[in-house]
């Protein structure tokens, strides 16, 4: 970071945005920036439709599924520094150890990560990232925020994404060029693997922007809980408000 003070200011602003009081969530989610978000979402969708999707479709046509899966495994393995650091930050030591073991096994026996013997050996996979680490230590997510190209996010997750990016370039000693190549490959390959899911989601959606927003927020909350379900969590607003009583008024 060549201008630490500017970067720090940026981070502080983003975190402060995240701490802004949550607005009333009567029916919708926390989306005070909706007009802005819808705009960026629209641009991202156009970029996807006219550039990324056609390229990904082409890739899907010319590549065997076996190759796409190998590349996906390889790239997942490369994200080890992010998972290692994020698990460690949350003091999830057993998981940090498991991830380390997984990385070693897959890089050696799995031939640079193209294969995944670790899963067959029963080694767990703990997909943590710095956004979740921030959440673990009490950083509120903040308002829903759609980022250019990156897509659905939040102030907290945006900072997390930035940190993950630094973690990936730094310790792995990747040059910026290598980073761009790998990033590009990741975008196309992952998009190719998600082609059918995205088409189905768009077909199923009554409002695609809202579907993605709601899905993203719930997904991130679930990841922050590591998939745990708290049975005592109050659910009146979702399952219990008595419609029958309401009508009788």
């Amino acid at each position, binding site marked *: 970071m060549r201008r630490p003070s500017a970067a720090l200011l940026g981070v502080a602003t983003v975190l402060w945005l995240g701490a802004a009081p949550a607005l009333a969530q009567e*029916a*919708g989610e926390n989306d005070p920036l909706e007009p802005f978000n819808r705009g960026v979402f629209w641009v991202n969708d156009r970029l996807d439709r006219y550039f990324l999707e056609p390229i990904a479709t082409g890739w899907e046509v010319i590549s065997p599924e076996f190759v796409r899966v190998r590349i996906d495994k390889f790239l997942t393995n490369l994200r080890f520094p992010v998972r290692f650091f994020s698990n460690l930050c949350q003091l999830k030591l057993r998981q940090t150890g498991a991830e380390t073991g997984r990385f070693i096994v897959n890089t050696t026996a799995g031939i640079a990560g193209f294969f995944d013997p670790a899963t067959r050996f029963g080694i767990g996979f703990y997909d943590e990232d710095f956004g979740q680490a921030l959440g673990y230590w009490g950083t509120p997510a903040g308002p829903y925020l759609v980022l250019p190209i990156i897509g659905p996010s939040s102030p907290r997750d945006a900072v997390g994404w930035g940190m993950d990016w630094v973690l990936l370039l730094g310790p792995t000693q990747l040059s910026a060029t290598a980073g761009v190549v790998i990033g590009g490959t990741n975008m196309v390959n992952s998009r190719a693997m998600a082609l059918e899911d995205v088409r189905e989601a768009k077909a199923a959606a*009554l*409002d695609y922007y809202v579907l993605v927003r709601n899905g993203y927020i*719930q*997904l991130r909350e679930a990841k922050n809980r590591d998939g745990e379900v708290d*049975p005592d969590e109050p659910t009146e607003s979702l*399952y219990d408000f008595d419609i029958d009583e309401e009508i009788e008024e």
Partner: protein
Amino acid sequence: MGLVAGALALWLTLPGEAAPEAGAKATIERVVAQALEVLGDASLSESDKQQKIEQIARERFDFPRITKLVLGHNYKKLSEPQREQFLVEFRRHLSLTYGRRLRRFSDEKVEVGGVLRHPNGDVTVRTVFAAGDANGIGMDYRMRERDGEWYAIDLVIEGVSMISNFRSQVQEIVSSKGADGLIDTLRKKNDKGSLTEPS
């Protein structure tokens, strides 16, 4: 995997599981077994499979309650005939989107895992796909008792509640286009969806 299955089996046979949770869990185990049997039956055509699965879903999901939950506070804004129309179109929508997606499943295995009881009496039954394309994906059923039987009122996939997701979309459309706009949007989508019905 063997270790997980073994641990699950042990857990399942542990005594002291309170009655309500066991009832909900047994219901899901039956539903899952029935559904997997249908999906794995090579003698059935894909549309037959879809029909049978929808029959199972109709019996086990409390659609009237689900419709109310999806409409949420907007329920008041709809007249009785509109509510009827919404239920019909919503069910059609689920069939066209999720029902269609089931056609891709054939070799799935599902592990039925933990049960959690909520303070209001609901029970969440947790399941995980253990094979096939969906391997590792978690699917939770939120169950509510009615007249001694357990019915599913929500499907939570990887932490994403279907009720919550649909409700926010419904809210958006009702605010911008009103109740008629909602039914109209649904109907148009369904009509378009059924046109692309693969054979």
